[in-house]
């Protein structure tokens, strides 16, 4: 079913336990059978308490009078049961007076054991609850570091992207450079070949025009020139 909206949930930290703790002692009884309230009946009306000097307790007097009346009118008849009752009563009173405290101590000990067991369970539960609260708080603290984690991851991704980009940039420049180098080499080769071809052709044409006679003359002239040059250079060296 639905939770009634009129009742607030967890409105305060304390829980309103409906059970108050058990009282220490029960109502007072006098002589085991007369509740103490009986003796307080006339106090509000007459102001007479148990300790006043006027009478040895009004109610004891009333009780005695009542007893004598019952006996004299034989409303309470004395027969064989009276004696049996008196004997039993005396035995009971003696037993209670003698063994009462021991029985009470034993019962208290039983009670204390039960309470101790319950208390142990309660303490364990409380401890485990506080531990789990602390663990929860620690987990909450840990989640605060999420932003740092994401920042680091973001940095990683950015670095990867950057690296990739730069690699590709290098690749592009290298490829372009290779192609341009190729074209440059091609041009150089073409120029060289043209040069060599032209030189060869010029040489061939020059050689073909030179006849053997002028060749000999030019060789002797070259030799005489070289000799003259050598003389001048030697002269220069000695100077």
């Amino acid at each position, binding site marked *: 079913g639905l939770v009634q909206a009129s009742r607030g949930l967890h409105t305060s930290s304390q829980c309103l336990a409906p059970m108050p703790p058990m009282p220490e002692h*029960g109502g007072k009884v006098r002589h*085991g059978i007369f509740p103490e309230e009986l003796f307080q009946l006339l106090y509000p009306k007459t102001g007479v308490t148990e300790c006043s000097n006027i009478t040895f307790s009004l109610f004891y007097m009333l009780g005695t009078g009542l007893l004598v009346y019952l006996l004299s009118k034989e409303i309470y008849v004395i027969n064989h049961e009276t004696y049996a009752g008196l004997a039993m009563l005396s035995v009971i009173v003696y037993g209670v007076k003698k063994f009462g405290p021991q029985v009470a101590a034993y019962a208290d000990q039983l009670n204390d054991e039960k309470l101790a067991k319950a208390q142990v369970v309660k303490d364990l539960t409380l401890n485990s609850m506080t531990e789990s609260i602390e663990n929860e708080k620690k987990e909450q603290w840990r989640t605060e570091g999420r932003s740092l984690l994401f920042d680091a991851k973001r940095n990683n991704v950015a670095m990867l992207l950057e690296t990739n980009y730069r690699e590709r940039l290098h690749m592009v420049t290298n490829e372009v450079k290779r192609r341009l180098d190729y074209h440059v080499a091609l041009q150089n080769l073409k120029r060289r070949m043209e040069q060599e071809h032209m030189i060869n052709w010029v040489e061939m044409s020059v050689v073909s025009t030179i006849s053997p006679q002028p060749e000999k003359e030019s060789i002797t002239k070259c030799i005489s020139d070289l000799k003259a040059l050598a003389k001048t250079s030697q002269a220069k060296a000695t100077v």
Partner: protein
Amino acid sequence: MAGKEVSIAAKALRDVKLGELGAWFGSRDMSPKGIISAICRGRDRYLNKYIYVKKGGIGGIAMILTGYVALSYVWEYDHIKHDRWRKYH
């Protein structure tokens, strides 16, 4: 004691004056359910006062047993009458 004015029905029996007794009696719930609830309330009051305590005394049980003895004597009185010592009192 000028306390607050409560209706007759809300007073406990010990606070009811003699003249109001009839009115009080008439205003109580006398159906079987009411009677049984009254008996239960009385029982709970007695138990909570004398028995459900940490250190109860003999009074709790002794009063019940004494009441039982007295009640059984009252029920047997017609039979016990024949054991009387004197005829005229």
